[in-house]
């Protein structure tokens, strides 16, 4: 095998190699010297939001852009925390229960949304976030109202902080990888094709014999499930839960991540979350409290105008150029 053949082989399977590289890197990061709890914290929140944005993206994939996804984030978190407290269960179990409960609620919300499109859908989902916020605050006997609830940590809190952070890092990383894998399988399967058909033209999809209502509901339930798990994981890591989790910002963040990364792709939310987190936390680190949000806003506008397919289109262009080069090499 010559060097050129190896190069061509690498280029052919570049996605797989990049995935492998990212996986290895993410699994070894906590043991790189100089990585402290602060950085691990940032990474954990980043993984949670990767999961959350992927879930949002899954719903957007079926043509339903939600503006109130923080409802699912918060529902998962509250369910998990309350069940863990009531039955004294391990958070790892209650996280799944939280996700399932959120999926059921997602199904109910989806039922009211099947006939709605675009702004109507956006407004109704936004409204649901506010309604669920209000209900949560009103049920202060269970949820603690505005004061919130202390929560169990994913790993029992008695161990040394950095060890706890490391363990939680791995748990959340595994959850994230699993959920991305499942979302990928769903999108690549027949369900994903149905989603795409509905997104492009709902009437045509219906004519082709796709049960649009069923698939839209599946989209809602799956998206809510993963959002719920993400919220529960995040809150069990942070250790305290307040109704602030229903904030508008939490609804907007997955949208920003998905847009900047690239909509309707698997890699988009991952790349978007990574890049925006680096910019966001990097600027915050330098003490720019409002400036970093101004820059994010400006960036978002510029991306929508000049890079409508997100950062991923840059990588795709580079990849295409390389591919064409290798193709010429093999033919010549």
């Amino acid at each position: 095998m010559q060097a050129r053949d190896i190069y061509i082989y690498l280029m052919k399977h570049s996605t797989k190699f990049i995935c492998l590289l990212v996986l290895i890197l993410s699994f070894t990061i906590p043991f790189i010297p100089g990585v402290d709890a602060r950085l691990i914290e940032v990474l954990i929140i980043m993984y949670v939001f990767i999961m959350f944005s992927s879930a949002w993206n899954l719903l957007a994939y079926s043509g339903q852009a939600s503006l109130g996804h923080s409802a699912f984030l918060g529902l998962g978190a509250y369910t998990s925390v309350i069940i863990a407290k009531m039955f004294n269960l391990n958070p790892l179990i209650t996280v799944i229960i939280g996700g399932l409960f959120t999926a059921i609620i997602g199904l109910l919300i989806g039922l009211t949304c099947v006939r709605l499109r675009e702004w109507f859908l956006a407004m109704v989902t936004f409204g649901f976030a506010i309604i669920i916020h209000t209900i949560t605050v009103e049920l202060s006997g269970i949820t603690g109202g505005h004061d919130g609830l202390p929560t169990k940590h994913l790993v029992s809190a008695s161990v040394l902080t950095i060890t706890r952070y490391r363990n939680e890092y791995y748990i959340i990383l595994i959850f994230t990888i699993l959920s991305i894998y499942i979302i990928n399988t769903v999108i690549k399967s027949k369900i994903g094709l149905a989603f795409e058909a509905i997104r492009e033209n709902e009437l045509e999809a219906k004519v082709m014999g796709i049960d649009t209502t069923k698939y839209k509901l599946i989209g809602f339930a799956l998206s809510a499930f993963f959002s719920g798990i993400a919220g529960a994981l995040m809150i069990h890591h942070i250790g305290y839960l307040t109704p602030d989790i229903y904030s508008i910002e939490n609804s907007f963040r997955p949208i920003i991540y998905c847009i900047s990364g690239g909509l309707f792709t698997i890699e988009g939310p991952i790349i978007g979350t990574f890049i925006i987190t680096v910019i966001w936390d990097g600027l915050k680190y330098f003490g720019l409290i409002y400036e970093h949000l101004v820059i994010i806003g400006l960036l978002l506008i510029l991306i929508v105008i000049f890079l409508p397919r997100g950062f991923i289109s840059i990588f795709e262009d580079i990849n295409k150029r390389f591919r064409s080069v290798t193709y010429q090499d093999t033919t010549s």
Partner: protein
Amino acid sequence: MNLTVLFDIIFWGLYAGCIYILLAIGLNLIFGVMKVVNFAHGELLMLSIYITFFIHMIFNVNPYLVVPVTMLVMFFIGIFIERLCFRPIMGTGKLNEIFLSLGLIYLLQNTVALVWGSDFRSIRSPFENDAVVFGLAKIQEPGREFIVMNLTKIQNQSIGDYIPIWLVRLPLDYVIIIFVTIFLLILLQIFLRKTTIGMNMRATSQNREAAMLTGINVEWMDMISFGLGSALAAAAGSLWCVSGVIFNPYVGSIPAIKAFAVIILGGLGSIEGAIAGGLIYGMAENFASYIFGGAWKDATSFIILLIVLILKPTGLFGESNR
């Protein structure tokens, strides 16, 4: 619930409704002409609040006189935003508009917070303690006794020989706001129906291509409609802040989102629908806060929206083919 409380709630609902109506009609104008939904409308409201506040503070004039100035300033800011942000993405898909507005929300909120700080501020209205009082009162004079309709402007006057049977006290600020809103709506109707530009705008909103064929410069219409929408948002914002609302740079999102709910309730693009929706929302919110408590204020409007949309997915006055 006695009659006075009922009247108070309806009146407060009217006042809240006026703010929503102004915002919603601005949105509707923009949507009608450009077919673009500007989710950052609340940030235009917030910006106009700050402009009013600073003009009022620097020149120390009556805040009500600042309202037209703010509207003019916001008209040009609106044109500026339309040219720079919305023009490039016209026709590239509905999701892009939502996303661009999100970017604008972040940009405007935090620029204002950066420049003017994120503390809560408020304007003291010159008519803070004044109120319009009316109702029935009994006048007792020596020898006779009769009932009159009482209509006085200043509340703090001693009532004297009057014995109130039921009196309603309406803060003067709110009365002014309601009348200014009605005045603006009439002006807008005259503009849309009698002037050439207004008629061109309506033609554009009915059929963009046909309007283009008849020689209407639709891009001008886009700019003017966005400017007018911003000016109406400015009217809503400055009137709202003059009535004594405390504000910070993040105050805009909830009214804007409700204005959306209003136009969705009334049907996209329908001005009558926006007026009806705004009034329904204003009243419903105030009734809900009275009956269930203040926490339900925001949720109520969305519950109404949900019920309406489940029953009629195009809104109350919406056209069925959208």
